[in-house]
């Protein structure tokens, strides 16, 4: 029984990390392609229409929903601090994939900043 519990815990954690990373990558990719969107009331309405017309954006929101429900399921069994490896791993994976999949320029300063933020996130949840 405890072994089963242990397995579910890590399974949920991987589901959270994979779905969050996939969702954010797809969203960033599609939104860059669609050009700078406005944040006026009209612009937000237009965004809703863009969601409906792009498969990857729908998939991205589906991934965010999976990540959200997996997170809720994890919190029912584990303390909030156990969710930290999830946010830390997500953060690292996404920055690396942004560099190699989305071809973003991640220089020394951005890497240093990201590492500081990572350290802060880990400290914050102790």
């Amino acid at each position, binding site marked *: 029984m405890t072994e089963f519990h242990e397995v579910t815990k890590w399974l949920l954690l991987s589901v959270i990390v994979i779905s969050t990373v996939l969702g954010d990558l797809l*969203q960033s990719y599609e939104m860059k*392609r669609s050009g*700078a969107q406005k944040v006026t009331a009209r612009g937000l309405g237009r965004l809703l229409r863009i969601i409906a017309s792009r498969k990857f954006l729908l998939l991205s929101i589906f991934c965010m929903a999976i990540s959200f429900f997996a997170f809720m399921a994890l919190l029912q069994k584990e303390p909030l601090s156990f969710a930290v490896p999830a946010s830390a791993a997500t953060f690292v994976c996404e920055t690396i994939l*942004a560099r190699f999949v989305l*071809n973003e320029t991640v220089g020394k300063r951005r890497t240093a900043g990201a590492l500081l933020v990572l350290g*802060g996130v880990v400290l914050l949840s102790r």
Partner: protein
Amino acid sequence: MSQYASSVQDPPKSIGLAPTFEAIQVVRSPAPQSKLKAILLAIVVVCFNAVGNLSLAWGMKHISDVGVNPIGYVHAMLNPFVACGIVLLVLWLLTRMALMSWADLSFVLPLMAIGYIVAAILGRFVLHEQVGLPQWFGTFLIFGGSVLVGTTHHRSGE
């Protein structure tokens, strides 16, 4: 590169969503947003998320057990705090998408971590939780890291 730059000066009036490479280039080029605007929008996105979550959590706490039936969820949505939380989280999603269209993912992510600082401050002063020294040091690191990332160029390839 030069004819690419000239298309920025003179954006076409109507933009179709034709999935050709050329069309994508044209759609992408008009009105790139400044870095300052991107950082300000990031702060707005973070606030929508923090206040939305707080409102939703507050509303859910003051409802008798929701249960697993859909009627329970519909009933929960009638609570003003829950409804307000849902509206704010929809706004969070839309503004976050707009932000992604303005800036790199690796630029946006560290800025989103400012949300942890907002959460710590809300936890301390609204919910009266204990926030220890390591936690305050953590918020300081996140702030420093976000400022450092904020000094880099927000959009690759421009």
